């Protein structure tokens, strides 16, 4: 497998448990290989061969002059962190009380990360997470300590410059301890001619009664590939509320696997996607209800134009003893051109009998009567379409609690 045959040096080869994990991952990846069109979980959005044969791990240390950081000036206060070309280049100073942020290597050297690293998923099921583990080198370990209510979001900006075709494996571990509350925003962008393959894995642990609001936005170059895996575990009474916003990219896939492991844990996994060129957006979810009285809700809406393709795969799994749970899912897509395509695959696996579950999917064009009504009031057709599209997606953005964050997410799509 050419991807593994990269002669590079990674930190931590003197830490036996850590190097052992990477070695295990290399073997797992060699065994399972990359997904193809025949891999069920990837059948709608498999990679063309050259996407994965050419990217190289970039070993040159990146000295960021900061100009790309300015481009993302935020309209709200945040704890700002930055990756540039896949390298951690900036950690905010003066952190608020109750938040610990450390680079991956540091938390690995003193072993603090050990209870969390690769503990939330099985590599055999996720080829790109195995690849990510095989090249573990860069990432963050973020802890919100028990009872802390963070009053500003943590903002992770990932920026890519043009230049070599990079493979970037980043691992973030986010731990929200008992009763804490935080907002995490991830923002992916790059120069318009940048070529790269981002392979991001976030392991997220939401403690008892804790809340994490996780918002992710990507709008990237037409040659960029983006694969992100959110492996989330939610304990008793904890809440994971998320929104995935996909824009342009050659292929962007965000897979959120949420395990509701204890009673009264809940998750909201919402998404929007809007593409007008020839990219592919794939939002894949897997909500696992493993305890009674757990709730999940998903609303994903997309707008496709040009030759774009949208994929939604949503799985809800309800374990035999997860009684009195609710699991709802709705996917809707606007398909504005003949060349655009949408693929939707809902899967419900219900092994308990006292549950409320539903799923639904629709696709269609903008409403001709609404467009005419607006035109008959003087609003030009293009503007009317834009208003209707925004109104359509707004339903999802309204689920974001902080309106300033919601507006910002909207404006970046």
């Amino acid at each position, binding site marked *: 497998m050419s991807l593994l045959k990269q002669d590079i040096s990674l930190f931590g080869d003197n830490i036996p448990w850590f190097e052992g994990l990477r070695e295990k991952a290399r073997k797992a990846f060699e065994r399972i290989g990359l997904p193809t069109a025949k891999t069920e979980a990837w059948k709608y959005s498999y990679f063309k061969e050259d996407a994965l044969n050419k990217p190289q791990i970039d070993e040159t240390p990146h000295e960021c002059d900061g100009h790309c950081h300015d481009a993302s000036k935020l309209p709200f206060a945040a704890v700002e962190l930055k990756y540039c070309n896949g390298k951690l280049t900036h950690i905010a100073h003066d952190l608020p009380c109750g938040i610990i942020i450390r680079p991956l290597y540091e938390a690995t050297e003193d072993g603090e990360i050990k209870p969390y690293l690769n503990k939330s998923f099985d590599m055999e099921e996720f080829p790109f997470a195995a690849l990510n583990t095989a090249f573990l080198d860069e990432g963050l370990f973020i802890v919100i300590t028990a009872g802390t209510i963070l009053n500003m979001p943590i903002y992770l900006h990932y920026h890519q410059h043009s230049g070599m075709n990079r493979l970037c494996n980043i691992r973030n571990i986010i731990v929200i301890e008992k009763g804490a509350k935080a907002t995490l925003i991830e923002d992916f962008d790059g120069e318009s001619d940048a070529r790269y393959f981002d392979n991001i894995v976030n392991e997220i642990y939401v403690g008892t009664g804790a809340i994490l609001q996780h918002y992710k936005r990507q709008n990237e170059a037409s040659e960029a590939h983006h694969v992100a895996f959110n492996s989330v575990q939610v304990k008793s009474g904890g809440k994971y509320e998320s929104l995935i916003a996909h824009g342009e990219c050659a292929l962007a896939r965000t897979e959120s696997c949420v395990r509701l492991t204890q009673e009264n844990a809940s998750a909201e996994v919402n998404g929007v996607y809007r593409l007008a060129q020839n990219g592919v957006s794939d939002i894949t979810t897997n909500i696992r209800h493993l305890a009674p009285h757990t709730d999940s809700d998903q609303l994903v809406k997309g707008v496709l134009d040009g030759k774009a393709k949208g994929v939604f795969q949503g799985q809800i799994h309800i374990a035999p003893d997860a009684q009195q749970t609710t699991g709802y899912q709705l996917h809707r897509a606007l398909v504005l051109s003949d060349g655009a395509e949408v693929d939707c695959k809902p899967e419900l696996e219900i092994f308990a009998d006292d549950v409320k579950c539903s799923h639904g999917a629709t696709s269609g064009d903008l409403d*001709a*009567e*609404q467009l*005419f*009504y*607006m*035109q*008959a*009031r*003087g*609003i*030009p*057709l293009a*503007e*009317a379409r834009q*208003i*209707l599209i*925004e*109104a*359509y997606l*707004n*339903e999802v953005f309204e689920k974001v609690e902080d309106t300033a964050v919601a507006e910002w997410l909207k404006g970046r799509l």
Partner: protein
Amino acid sequence: MTQKLLEIKNLSAGIAESGKEIIKGLNLTINAGETHAIMGPNGAGKSTLSYVITGKSDYAVTGGEMLFEGQNLCTLKPEERAALGIFLSMQSPIEIPGVTTQNFLKHSVNAVRKYNNLPELDAAEFLKLLRTAAKEFDVSTDMLKREINVGFSGGEKKRMEILQLSLLQPKLAILDEADSGLDIDALKIVANGVNQWHNQNNSLLIITHHLDLLKRIKPDFVHIYSDGHIVKTGDMALAEELETSGYKNYLKASV
């Protein structure tokens, strides 16, 4: 001298997709300041006429011409016709989930201003204009914040249409069944709104079944429309005659 506002000459039009002809050689001239009423049986295609004048793409003109202040309407998009001053109040105003009434109205007013080379109104200026008009037509602030027409009662929808008429100040207003589903109070508000806007420089085309609205908005001409064209033109007396004896005297004898 009377000024021709809308001139329809020997117009034929039908459904774009199927080619089915609905309007067959219709002639109608509306001068500035006049009020015309079109009456006719259900299914005669009265609403089709309003859509053809405003340019709905479901319908295609197959013959004749339509001039608005001398300008050929057939080559203009619906939004251009609206911006030139043609206003259509639909029988069933369309609901648009996700778009607030206030936002919709602001887009509308500014689009029309922009087309006519007038500066667009900023948020404060627009709000001032809107509040004044809303008060006049008994439209609450709460209603302005709701999604346009979504969950509005029949009366609320029609009041909203008249509010738009007042905001846009068109030259020609086509009221398609503006009276349907209205109680007496709502009918009064609609009629008063229309009468307030109406003057010697603008015109009205009212499509209706009922005398109620015509008693409140006095038409200068009443036309009977059947089988795709106007079969009889008269004044208010004709409308009153229809009220008692129906359309049977004016329809083609059925075989």
